[in-house]
Structure formats: C-alpha cells, structure tokens
C-alpha cells in the first residue's frame, strides 16, 4: 500500500467505519482472526525464516525460538483465554449505594496503530496484533522499513489470512511514523511505548563452580545469541566484583568459543548487524582510544558482511558513549565494583532500564535490588526468559 497522507487518511476512515459495524466486537470474529494468525505462522515458517535471514542473518533456530515459536504460543494462549478476558468483572459496591451493582467491562478502543521494530520484525509486529485483535480493535501495522524483507512479507501475507477490512499493513519510511507520532498528543491518543535502555546484569560471586558456569553460559546465550545483542532486553553491561572479573572474563571467552566457534561469519549462528548505519554506530563506540584500550576480547569488524565479533571490554571510561548510550549490539562492557552491593547505587544513578538481571543466591541482596532499584522488570539468575519462554526442566533431564 502506498503511504501518502491522503491515502492513509482514507484507510483510517474506512477502518473506523468498519469498526462501527461492531463486527470486530464479537467473540467469533476475534477467535477466527486469532486462528488465522496461528495458521499464518504455521504455514509460512520457511518464508518467515528466510525473510529474517535476509534482513538480519538470523539463524532459523534463533528465529523460531525468539519469534515464531513465541508467536504461536501467544496466539494459542490468547485464543484459549479471549472469552474469559472479555467477561466483565463484578465490582463490590459499598452498602450506602444499595440497591446497585457494578461491573468493569473491557471494551475495544477503536482504530489502533502498531509500530514494530527491525530486531524482531515478525514477533514485534504480530504479537501486539494478537493483543489488539483479542480486544476487538481494528488495526494498522507499520512494520520497520529497516527490515524490508519481513516488512513486505507482512504486507503480502497478512491480507491472505486476516479480515482485510479490519487489519491493514502500511509500509513506509520512519518519517511517516514520526508524523503520526506527533499527532498522538494532538488527538489525545493513549500510547504504549516499548523502549529499551542499558540493561545491567549484576554478577554476584557464586561459590558453587557449576552455578558460576551456568550463570556465564546464560549471559553469553542472552547477550550474543539473541540477534547479536540487538534486543531491547539484551544485557547491556555486566557489573562484577573486581577480584572476580578476570575469572568471569575467561569463562565468557570460553563459552563464546564453544557456542559460536572459531569462524563465526561462516557458522551463521550469530545474526549480523542490521544495516550499515548501525554497523558504523557500533564501530564508532569502539573508536574512542580509551574504549579501544579496554577491549579484552574480540573487537574485529567485517564491513562487507556487516559482522562484529562478540567483544568484551573491561572498565571502559564511564563517560564514554559506550556507557552512556544503549549499545544494542555485540559489545559487552564489564564494569568492576569493590563490593557487589555498590551496583545498586551504580544502576540508580542512571536512567531506569527495561530490565535488571542479577545472578545471586543472596536473598537479602535480592530483596534490596527489588526494593531499591526501578526498572521495567527484574530477573534473578537467568536472562531473557521473562519473554522468551525458554526451557523446561524436562529437557534438562535428558
């Protein structure tokens, strides 16, 4: 679909008309559409994997684990629960108002707009769509133009499965997005903003060697295994006590080698950097001489393949860009503190992150972290699982 202002206006008008017919309010319509999303994901797995590889060099297993599998699960859960979610909740009414009864009834908002991003271009477009449809809304999706293969996949495939009167894909440049964005305040449109931030991982000393190993493993898997660090909840930097830092770094290196091999470009296990602009941004982070001097592992870049090696930095200057901006790439600064408890103050002196990870067995420390820091979420002793729904213990037993 073309994206001139007039056409967009026309599209929104049509959607609003359709919303008024109340068709999207029925349970049947919602369930049909959710089933259609399930079918879409199921029947187009290869096409989506291909598009993801084309846009990001994302490995099919990673694509399934982080995007397609999660989507199927989300659609299925929603399909199972939507009727229950739609039911009104009874409110307790104080006696003074007798006789009266009260309820809170969820109702669709109307025409909603979803902007998705390029790092999980399928998941972050379709998962909000599942929510919007389950609530009975009509939807415009604007996929990120920085993942063009996925964007055109969505534009071509969604109309084949979904009610085209209610769900439209509008492709285009981010300029379109910013225009729509600024008009949100003008129209008093409520927004949900899913952003990022510098997500720290606190690494307390774990006396049990196998716990220690597992913690490092989970960090390596999460930092580089998820779109090469290009994830909003990816670990941005590590906080560790100075006396353990070399031990941690050695183990990080070991698991990087084990997971991604010696020839990382060929192995195709790691995603590449999304585009030249981001590649350059990341290279610039490393160019600061004091930052470059702090590299203890990796640091090599390959411009033709847009590939950056998993890179570890030890105590880069805190005022350098790598420590003031969200990294969103395969670089991992390790920041040392004297006592691990100091990491709370360190985190609090910076903007609130999306997630704080903490590897510790100390319950008092856990309570302190939850009570004293502020973030979108806190995860103890693991990474990313809060959204990625990873593994059960069944597999562990095998």
């Amino acid at each position: 679909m073309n994206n001139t202002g007039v056409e967009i206006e026309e599209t929104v008008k049509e959607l609003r008309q359709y919303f008024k017919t109340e068709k999207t309010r029925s349970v049947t319509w919602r369930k049909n559409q959710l089933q259609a999303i399930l079918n879409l994901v199921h029947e187009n797995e290869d096409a989506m994997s291909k598009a993801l590889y084309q846009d990001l060099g994302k490995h099919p297993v990673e694509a399934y684990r982080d995007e397609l599998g999660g989507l199927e699960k989300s659609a299925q859960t929603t399909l199972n629960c939507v009727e229950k979610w739609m039911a009104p909740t009874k409110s307790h009414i104080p006696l003074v108002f007798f006789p009266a009864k009260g309820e809170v009834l969820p109702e669709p908002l109307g025409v909603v707009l979803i902007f998705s991003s390029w790092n999980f271009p399928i998941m972050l477009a379709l998962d909000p769509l599942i929510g919007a449809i389950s609530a009975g809304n009509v939807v415009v999706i604007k996929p990120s133009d920085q993942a063009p293969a996925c964007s055109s996949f969505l534009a071509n495939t969604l109309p084949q499965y979904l009610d085209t009167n209610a769900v439209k894909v509008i492709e285009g440049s981010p300029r379109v997005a910013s225009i729509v964005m600024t008009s949100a305040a003008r129209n008093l449109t409520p927004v949900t903003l899913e952003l990022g931030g510098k997500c720290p991982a606190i690494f307390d000393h774990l006396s049990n060697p196998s716990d220690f190993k597992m913690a490092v493993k989970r960090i390596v898997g999460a930092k580089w295994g998820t779109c090469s660090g290009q994830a909003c909840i990816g670990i941005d930097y590590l906080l560790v006590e100075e006396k353990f830092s070399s031990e941690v770094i050695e183990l990080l290196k070991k698991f990087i080698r084990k997971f991604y091999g010696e020839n990382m470009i060929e192995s195709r296990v790691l995603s590449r950097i999304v585009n030249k602009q981001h590649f350059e941004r990341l290279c610039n982070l490393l160019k600061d001489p004091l930052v470059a001097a702090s590299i203890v592992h990796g640091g090599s870049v390959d411009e033709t393949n847009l590939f950056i090696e998993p890179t570890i930095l030890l105590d880069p200057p805190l005022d350098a860009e790598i420590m003031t901006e969200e990294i969103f790439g395969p670089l991992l600064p390790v920041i040392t503190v004297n006592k691990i408890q100091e990491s709370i103050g360190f985190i609090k002196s910076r903007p609130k992150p999306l997630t704080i990870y903490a590897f510790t067995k100390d319950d008092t420390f856990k309570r302190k972290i939850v009570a004293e820091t502020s973030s979108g979420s806190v995860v103890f002793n693991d990474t990313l699982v809060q959204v990625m729904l990873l593994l059960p213990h069944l597999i562990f037993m095998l």
Partner: protein
Amino acid sequence: MEKFDGEAGSILVNELNEIIDALRNDINKPPLETVAYEIAMLKNSCKTAIKELKHWMAPEKVKTSLTTFPSSAEIVSEPLGVVLVISAWNYPFLLSLDPVIGAIAAGNAVVLKPSELAPATSSLLAKLLGEYMDNSSIRVVEGAVEETSALLQQKWDKIFYTGNGKVARIVMAAAAKNLTPVVLELGGKSPVIVDSNSNINLQVATRRIIAGKWGCNNGQACISPDYIITTKDYAPKLVDALKTELESFYGKNPLESKDLSRIVNSNHFARLSKLLDDDKVVGKIVYGGEKDESKLRISPTILLDVPRDSLIMSEEIFGPLLPIITVDKLEESFNVINSAPKPLAAYLFTNNKKLKERFVKTVSAGGVVINDTSLHLAVHTLPFGGVGDSGIGAYHGKFSFDAFSHKKAVLYRSFFGDASIRYPPYTKTKMRFLKALMTGGLLAIVNAIFGKS
C-alpha cells in the same frame, strides 16, 4: 506512608469550616454540596487507602509456565518518583487531594498545582498542606499559565491533569518530550437517555437527573448530564416532571436560591450566555433562562428540541443549561451518542433489560450508569476516567494506587534446570525439541525425544 494519608484525613476534620468558606468564596458552593461531594468523598478515599494500603502494596504472585520451570514470578508495585498533579476549579478540593492521596499511597513525591480560577481554595490548600503534610516530599505550587508552563518544562515521572481537552493537549505534548506518562481527566457531552416505553418511575428519574445536573455544582461538573435524549411524544411529559421537581428543589426564584452554585467567572458566564443567544435555539427555552450578570448566576434552564448543529450541542455545556434532543424511536439515540466524541459518562433510565444490555455493549464512555446519574464517581471499586476525547487513564480506590505505581515484573530462577538447546551451536535436533516444547504437549515432546517429528 500511612501517616501522611492519615494527616490528609485530619485536614478534613480540623479545617472543615475554612474549606467550606473557601469554596463559598470561589464558586458560592452550598455547604452541603461541599460536605457531601468534596469532604465526604475525600474522607472515604483516605480511609480506603489507609485500610487497604498494605494489601495494595503487597507483590502479586503470578503463574509461570512449564517453559520457564523451575521459577517463581511476581508483580511488584513501585512508586514512579516525582509526580505533578494539576487540578481544576469546579471541585477544587476533591480534585486536588484525591489524586494526591493516590500519589502518596503509591509512595511518590508530589507537586500539586491547584487551579488559579478557585483562588481561595488554592491558597487554603497551599497553607494546609504546608501545615499538615511532609513538605520534603509534598509541595503546593500556586499560579496560572506562566507557572504551569514552567512546571510542564520539568521532567516528571507522571503528570495527572484534570481539566479540558485544549489544555490536555498542551500537557500531553510537553509530557511526550520526556516520555512522561499522563492521566488526563477530561469531560465531554455526557448524554442521558430517558426511555418512554418501559414504565419508569418518572419522578425518581427526574430527581436523579436534577441531582446530577444542578445539584452538582450547578452543572459545572465533568460528569454532569449534558443533554437528554428521549422520544418526541414523551418529551412534554418529561419536561413537566423536570419543572415540578426543579421548583420543589430550588423554589420559584432559583436565581436567589442558596442551594445552587454560581458560575465560576465572567468568562464562563459569557460563554454560557452565547450558547443561549445562538439563533438556532431561539424559542427553544421551555424553562428558566434567567440571568444575573452582576451575581454571575444563571437559573436552571431547559431547552426542548434543539437542532444537533446548534452551538449548545457542539461543545460541552458545563453549566446549568439542559437541552433535550427528541428522536422518533429510542434506538436512534445510540447513533446520536456514537456519532459524537466519546463522553466521560453516559446515563440511561429504563426498565427494559434488552435496552440496558444493548446500551452497555454499544455506547462507549468512561463510565455508564443505569437508572441514576453521577453516582459511579463515588464507588471506589470502579475505575473513574475517560476514553477517547474524555481522557486517558483512571483513578479512585485501588485504581488511584495503580495510576501512580509502576508494575515491575520480577522473575526468580534458580541455577537448577538448564538445557543445552537454548544455546548454540544450533542443530536440527535442537530445533525439533524447541518446537515440541513451545507448541506441543507432552506427546510431541516424547516424539521429539525419539526423533519422530
């Protein structure tokens, strides 16, 4: 924390007369209205917050799935930080302190900017909060446009604004610069449908409409009935009933009645006069219409059969004028409502069960009340807030606490239960397990183990 809410509560007990006087100065609000709608509501808010706080603050355990086993998860409510409350002049006490109670209950530091259009209450709030509250974390900033603009340039962790859509847009645009979330409590044209076919008790219905319209600050309330929709043949009967009850409430000369608030200021008086002077409503006044500019008073006024493109039907009235729209069939009223921006409240008087259901399902409004008006505001178990043009977000009771809290997701995992399939190098076997795990049941997992796909 409990202490501060308690102190907010004792303001209401100790300083009752000062509060009544301030509201009388600002809008000539009848003392009974002040006590019933501002003081009593606030007392309830404080009591509820003090009683429930521990419960609200407790982390909420949530289920985790097989895929993250073994783990436990909870949602922790944490304060947002430093919040700004900008309140309005029509319920200057309630609309200032009710959000403040929520902000304090959730553990935030608060700056309150009361409305400069209710100056006596504004300075009383500044004085009393200075005396009663912890001033290291609760402050009042008085002022008008200049001060408000300066406040909006700061970075806040939440802005809670009560007022009109025009200023709300300025607030939201300023908030957008810092990604500050907002609650916007606005208004809109809240309709009342009166069903002519279901044998309603007309006297009770009219009394409840009057109580919500003129009995709440003379129509200057965000949830006031704005207009009535009823059928053509029933309208005269409804008008008669309204006249009778209005006279029994406010006497033959309502301009002199002490039981009605005045219009807040000359700007609003002029605005309301203009609505009555509109050519399109000439001859439509069937009751009232008297004005006294020197005292800023307008009597309860009913207009019958006003055209939908008249001035009075195109903006929120926010005053003692009540137009009645007539339709041939009652069902048409849903279209009348839905073709306008979403209102803060919608009211329906009927005994018809089907009509109730249809109304609740079809009409989108912040809140909906069947067979009464405005009462939902006082029920703290219901969220109070608008939708679309009538606002963003909601408060009251636990919803106030939630409005000023961040819901932090916390997941606890142990080191037990790790598997290789989440880590590279990726293989076909790992893919098969992954699929079985994420989509299939136990059978699929067993199949995957034995290599069947």
